[in-house]
């Protein structure tokens, strides 16, 4: 660290995090709060009430111009043309080898598309979009003057509706512009915790007032990146760079559900995205490995990189853990990882090698905790 700390960027809410006791850590070039009170307490506060996260390190991008939806479809295997105004969808940039370059959320906000990408990939993503879209007359604007916060949990609706009752009528993946604490906010009913909730893009200058207003409501707690990780893991959601990367295909990653019919074999706009050959073939014929849920039988967490074998002694390596930790809501260790086709069936017993010892783990469904989305 040391020297590189000087290069870390600070979000609009940096001072608020420090004042509220956050432990700040470097994350994707930013100084971010990893925890305040403690990961377990913050995790539970989100599942039971409403967790408030700052995610301003993520990239917000506006794409504007005639034919923007058609143009964007050249970068992703999703149906963007068919995405209705006021709706949002999970998507990913793919590469020519059929791997995933980043995962993202894309919203149709009427006269433009609004895209949110991962912090670590912002520069590459913006460059990718400029290179592909500007020649087609699409204006690509990286928005750097707005903070992004997430309010997540069963209590989120009541809390946010207290500021503007209109948000209560939003369904899962609806987007809209709503005034909150006097600021014009771009609100979506979404998140990355498996809970109902909202993500809110707010002008930088208005962010602190909005956050302190929300924190003044009962049941709202600040939550750091530590609990964000355990929440998304229990929800079976991928962390880019860990569970999915430029070598994993969407089909292997269990993300086929996010590729709509219009872009598949026989669809209205079949293919036409990077890596379509591999991805469409895998959609039709299956992949040779699969991302699966993994439930260790003991109490020891199985973390990223743990090798998975098909026998307690000897045997062959059939996979590897990509994310693993203790799941506070599950009350035990949970993990996900990739295993061969033969080892991917639910209930298959495998062994993960932890500190030289093989420990039993069962292939299980994802998510570990049922989603609380308001559909």
């Amino acid at each position, binding site marked *: 660290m040391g020297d590189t700390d000087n290069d870390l960027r600070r979000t609009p809410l940096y001072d608020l995090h420090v004042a509220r006791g956050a432990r700040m850590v470097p994350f994707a070039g930013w100084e971010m709060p990893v*925890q305040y009170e*403690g*990961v*377990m307490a913050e*995790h539970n506060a989100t599942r039971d009430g409403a967790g408030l996260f700052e995610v301003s390190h993520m990239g917000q991008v506006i794409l504007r111009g005639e034919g923007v939806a058609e143009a964007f479809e050249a970068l992703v295997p999703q149906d963007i043309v068919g995405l209705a105004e006021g709706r949002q969808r999970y998507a990913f940039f793919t590469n020519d080898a059929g791997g995933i370059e980043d995962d993202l959320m894309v919203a149709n906000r009427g006269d433009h598309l609004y895209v949110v990408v991962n912090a670590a990939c912002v520069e590459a993503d913006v460059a990718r979009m400029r290179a592909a879209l500007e020649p087609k007359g699409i204006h690509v604007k990286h928005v750097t003057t707005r903070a992004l916060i997430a309010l997540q949990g069963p209590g989120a609706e009541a809390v946010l509706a207290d500021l503007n009752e209109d948000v209560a009528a939003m369904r899962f993946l609806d987007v809209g512009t709503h005034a909150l604490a006097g600021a014009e906010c771009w609100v979506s009913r979404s998140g990355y915790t498996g809970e109902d909730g909202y993500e809110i893009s707010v002008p930088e200058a208005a962010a602190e007032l909005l956050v302190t207003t929300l924190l003044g409501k009962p049941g709202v707690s600040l939550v750091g990146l*530590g609990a964000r*990780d*355990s929440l998304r893991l229990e929800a079976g959601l991928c962390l880019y760079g860990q569970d999915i990367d430029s070598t994993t295909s969407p089909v292997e990653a269990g993300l086929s559900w996010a590729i709509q019919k219009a872009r598949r074999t026989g669809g209205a706009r079949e293919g036409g995205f990077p890596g379509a050959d591999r991805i469409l073939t895998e959609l039709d014929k299956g992949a040779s490995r699969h991302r699966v849920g993994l439930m260790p039988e003991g*109490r*020891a*967490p199985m*973390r990223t990189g743990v090798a998975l074998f098909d026998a307690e002694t000897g045997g062959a390596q059939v996979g590897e853990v990509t994310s693993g*930790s*203790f799941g*506070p809501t599950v009350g035990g*260790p949970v993990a996900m990882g990739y295993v061969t086709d033969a080892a991917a069936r639910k209930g298959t017993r495998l062994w993960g090698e932890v*500190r030289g010892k093989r420990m039993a783990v069962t292939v299980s469904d994802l998510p570990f905790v049922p989603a609380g989305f308001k559909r």
Partner: protein
Amino acid sequence: MKFTEEHEWLREEDGVIVVGITEHASEQLGDIVFVELPEEGTEVSKDDEVVVIESVKAASDILAPIDGEIVEVNEALVDEPGKVNDDPMGDAWFFKMKPADPSQMDDMMDEAAYKKFIG
């Protein structure tokens, strides 16, 4: 009570040494969710990895602070790892050792020196 730079405390009790981790260490580690203890009767050397503890975020080792024999382990921590956060200096001791050479503790920090060490 003596302290190590690895944030362990050692307390002599009826000729054996009780070993645990400090309040400071437990705060830094965060919520402890898993504890793996050594077998009673194991002979260990100073700096051997004898205990594994895992927090929500990461795994850490506890090293043997001195040479000797592990004579008792705190099995209660296996079922309730969270005790390490609740009472690290008391109930949540990890193991007791019969020291091979008690003079190995002579150079360890006392409480005042440890407080200075963690700043």
